[in-house]
């Protein structure tokens, strides 16, 4: 019914466009008024940046109106699926970098291989990988996100600590010291058991991986000696510095720091903004350093977003130009200044503070296995359950890792 109405609406609009153009143009889409539909995600690019790019884009294409909509992260999948299957899909979409793969493989996204983009040779590797499938580029790196240690300067000083730790052992000592000085429920570094993106970094730090691919077959690697060493390092670390429960995820990090129940968390730059707003008392005391590993900084999970275009877009060229503009130096600089991590390492000079620390940390990063079946593992909470079992002491590292490996192997190698 709605689709019918929409079709009539489009037909009517096309007719009006035709008559306005004097009935002469064979391609009304290029000359007549065109609406470019752009779907962005909540809490990503600030409104000012979106307005600025749309104004510039519309100035360059007088017949185009850019209609930007902001989607909630919750329930985004359902909206994308419905939209991509419709007659008139949005032209440009922002997708989380863990989301892109499944859509690239589905055939619903436009192939952007071979198009030129600024800074594409210095794009963040993790974002480029996330946007690629079978050697083709579907998702253009938009912005990144990774985790650093956010700490309270005042508590740090009160405990007699000065230099920022450069090794995991130093961080562990500092955390233990801070925890000893605090009250009964106080953590040195609050690290909940199900905080998988921070915990799995320990596996990569020790040289392990979640799973590797050879040909079509995936092999889970959590039981390898290196991965088990990493998980053991993690278990020892959280025991020494954290009083967070084993069955909780990272949803409350900001509040725990704001309510002065920890001296440190592992978090992202945007969290600092939230904490400052909600808990102004400690606003001036927050600082950050990269998470140290056993050798050098610890590899970080590279999150972030990519920009994609729907395969069924009526205006593929305009969609490409919009993506190109947003992914280019000018707007990436603006995003960087607003606290988002730009898509390229070449813009280090454009960012400051925690964003700069995050961008530097991104040089050593890891990403979840690029299998279209990974969402099954994610939804079954295999990694979170493994971590909780280890943190709570329900299972040994070897048992928990073996169990997770078996599930990952089953799920990644199941027929699609």
């Amino acid at each position, binding site marked *: 019914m709605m689709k019918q109405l929409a079709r009539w609406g489009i037909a009517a609009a096309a007719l009006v466009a035709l008559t306005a153009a004097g009935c002469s143009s064979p391609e009304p889409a290029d000359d007549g008024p065109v609406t470019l539909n752009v779907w962005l995600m909540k809490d990503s690019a600030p409104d000012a940046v979106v307005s600025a790019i749309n104004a510039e884009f519309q100035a360059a294409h007088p017949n185009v109106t850019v209609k930007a909509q902001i989607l909630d992260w919750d329930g985004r999948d359902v909206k994308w699926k419905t939209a991509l299957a419709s007659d008139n899909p949005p032209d440009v979409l922002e997708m989380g970098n863990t989301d892109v793969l499944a859509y690239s493989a589905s055939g619903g996204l436009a192939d952007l291989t071979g198009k030129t983009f600024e800074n594409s040779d210095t794009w963040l590797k993790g974002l480029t990988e996330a946007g690629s499938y079978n050697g083709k580029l579907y998702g253009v790196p938009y912005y990144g996100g990774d985790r650093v240690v956010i700490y309270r300067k005042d508590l740090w000083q009160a405990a007699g600590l000065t230099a920022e730790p450069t090794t995991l052992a130093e961080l562990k000592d500092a955390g233990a010291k801070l925890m000893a000085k605090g009250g009964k429920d106080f953590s040195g570094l609050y690290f909940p058991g199900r905080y998988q993106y921070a915990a799995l970094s320990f596996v990569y730090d020790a040289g392990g991986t979640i799973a590797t691919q050879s040909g079509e077959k995936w092999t889970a690697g959590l039981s390898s000696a290196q991965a088990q060493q990493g998980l053991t390092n993690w278990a020892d670390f959280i025991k020494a510095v954290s009083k967070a*429960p084993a*069955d909780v995820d990272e949803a409350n990090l900001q509040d725990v720091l704001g309510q002065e129940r920890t001296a440190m968390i592992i978090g992202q730059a945007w969290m600092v903004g939230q904490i400052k707003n909600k808990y102004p008392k400690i606003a001036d005391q927050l600082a950050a350093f990269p998470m140290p590993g056993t050798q050098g900084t610890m590899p970080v999970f590279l999150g972030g977003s990519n920009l994609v275009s729907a395969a069924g877009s009526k205006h593929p060229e305009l969609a490409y130009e919009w993506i190109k503009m947003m992914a280019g130096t000018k707007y990436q600089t603006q995003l960087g200044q607003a606290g988002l991590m730009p898509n390229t390492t070449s813009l280090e000079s454009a960012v400051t503070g925690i964003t700069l620390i995050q961008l530097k940390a991104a040089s050593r990063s890891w990403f979840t296995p690029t299998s279209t079946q990974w969402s099954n593992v994610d939804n079954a909470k295999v990694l979170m359950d493994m971590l909780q079992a280890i943190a709570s002491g329900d299972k040994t590292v070897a048992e928990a890792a073996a169990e997770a490996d078996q599930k990952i192997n089953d799920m990644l190698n199941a027929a699609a």
Partner: protein
Amino acid sequence: MSIVTTPRSVASPPAAQTPAARGPRRRGRGRGLPYLLLLPATLAVFVTLLYPVGSMLGLSFQRANLADLVTRTTTWVGLDNYANVLTDEFFWTVLPRTLAFAAVCVALTLAIGTVCALLLQRASRWARIFLSVSLVVTWATPVIIGAAVFRWLFDTEFGVINYVLTTTGLCECQHHSWLGDPIGAFVVLVAIVVWGAVPFAAMSIYAGLLTVPTELTEAARVDGATGRRIFVSIIFPLLRPIYAILTVLSVIWDTKVFPQVWLTTKGGPYQGTVMLGVYIYNKGINNSQFGVASTVAVLMTIMLVGLSWLYIRTLRGETR
């Protein structure tokens, strides 16, 4: 049912009037009218029931993954989805778990509902008003909000339950993780579902209690029957139809329980509280296997319709 009876009652008055009072020309119009009046109801049933169930059935024979969806192709796979589901070990863990969960919830709902109804009947006026208002407010609380409230009540760090238990000295429950192991999470889920379901059961049973003639219970009391005896031998048999319908409805509601689970445990920990609803959601919405998800939904529908039918049939047999 109502659709079958409506046209008859609507059709009969004009049929009685037309031959005498009005000409035969009108008769043709009168004959079409019932069908016309039937149309809205038929349309509503079609749009809200037949079409969705039909497309669910259709989807269960298709692959219907993300690629099929966005490229709008239909790939028929015959009975593959059914084979896939019925050989999935996890399905055979989830199914009995769901049924056990529903059984516990239904039993508790009816038991607590009965107690509340009896209380309502005997309590003083103010107590009755207080209890009714509490029940209605509970009943009016959206499931989503109820689940969110319970999730925070039982929270490991910020939960009121842990706080109250610890400060009153009942147990050293600080940082006790209620949702941390499958059994604990199961208990909390039962509490949420029963909490939400009791008001409806209590109100229905209370309404039923009001229809029980007081002479019967008074006569029984004169004969020396105890309260329990009166309930078992007089009240319960009279209210049997109400209990029957409450049981059927509760079984259906509790078997397809979803928001309460999704908002508190998401099926965890260790996948220990995945019920059929979450199983379907994970397969369909999260993993884009819409064919497989529809298959599970079809199986669940068949099972529930079968259970309800069996129950209603035995019940009718008993009353006859």
